[in-house]
């Protein structure tokens, strides 16, 4: 999956602002349902299952991508 595609899905899943990018802070969107949505999104695309604890450490889109691993993206 391309990074840009992932960010698009992230915007949709967490209902971020449309112009969100790697620098967007997402901590405020990670309430309990937001965390569950994000765990499901990553599981679906990367076959990786993170815990709520892991997701709570995420601050921005960039930090999320680096947690998943930049090498997992096509671009």
């Amino acid at each position, binding site marked *: 999956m391309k990074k840009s595609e992932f960010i698009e899905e992230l915007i*949709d899943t967490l*209902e971020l602002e*449309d112009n969100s990018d790697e620098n967007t802070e997402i901590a405020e969107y990670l309430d309990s*349902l937001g965390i569950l949505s994000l765990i499901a999104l990553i599981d679906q695309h990367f076959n990786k299952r993170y815990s709520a604890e892991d997701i709570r450490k995420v601050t921005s889109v960039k930090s999320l991508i680096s947690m998943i691993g930049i090498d997992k993206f096509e671009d």
Partner: protein
Amino acid sequence: MNKFCSLEDKNIVITGASSGIGRQCAIACSQRGANVALVARNKERLDETFAQLDTGNHVIIEQNITSFDQLESMIETIVEQMGSICGFVHCAGVELTLPFRNMNPEKYRELFDINVISGFEIAKYITKKRNIDEVASLVFISSVMGLVTQPGLIGYSTSKGALISGVRTLAVEVAKKQIRANCISPGYIDTPLLKNIPEEKKQELADKHPLGLGNPEDVANAVVFLLSDQSRWITGSNIIVDGGYSLS
């Protein structure tokens, strides 16, 4: 126009709009000033509903709502044509009377696909930020058979009961976006479907309703109320509109 329960300029999506309760909901919404997106499979009968609407920016959407992969684009099309959505009424549904021993997974699935899953899937796309208005209301037509039952209704009753319990979860999830979600559980309604049953059987059914059989208008009035701003503090509820059927 009477402002109580006004739906003026609200864009409302209605499934099952080609007949019965769905058709009457569409008519009632248009009479209260709403613009209505009529969704169903049968274009000809949708046209008949359309012809009975008061003036407005109404659209006809010919769609099988169990084609789940087409629902997101269906909602996008509606938003493109009408603007953001303020209300959704899930009237589409199928009834099946079959003894428990004759049921099979496929029959359960068919009931759940139409009665439950299609409604919640459409609600999922409608409630996306880009599609929904600032304040909105979702109404799901369940049935009094989701609360009480009769022999032969295991599939139908469980699907309608699932709607009632699912709507409670939906209500708490969407509340922070100022979206409400409620159910209406009608009793037996005097529709063309009932005209096919023998008169004595129909009378027997009517006798079980202290106020007699209902009309589509009785349900549509409750739908209009739940869509309107007058019900702004009601969410996760199930309004029983059954002429007293479930009391005994």
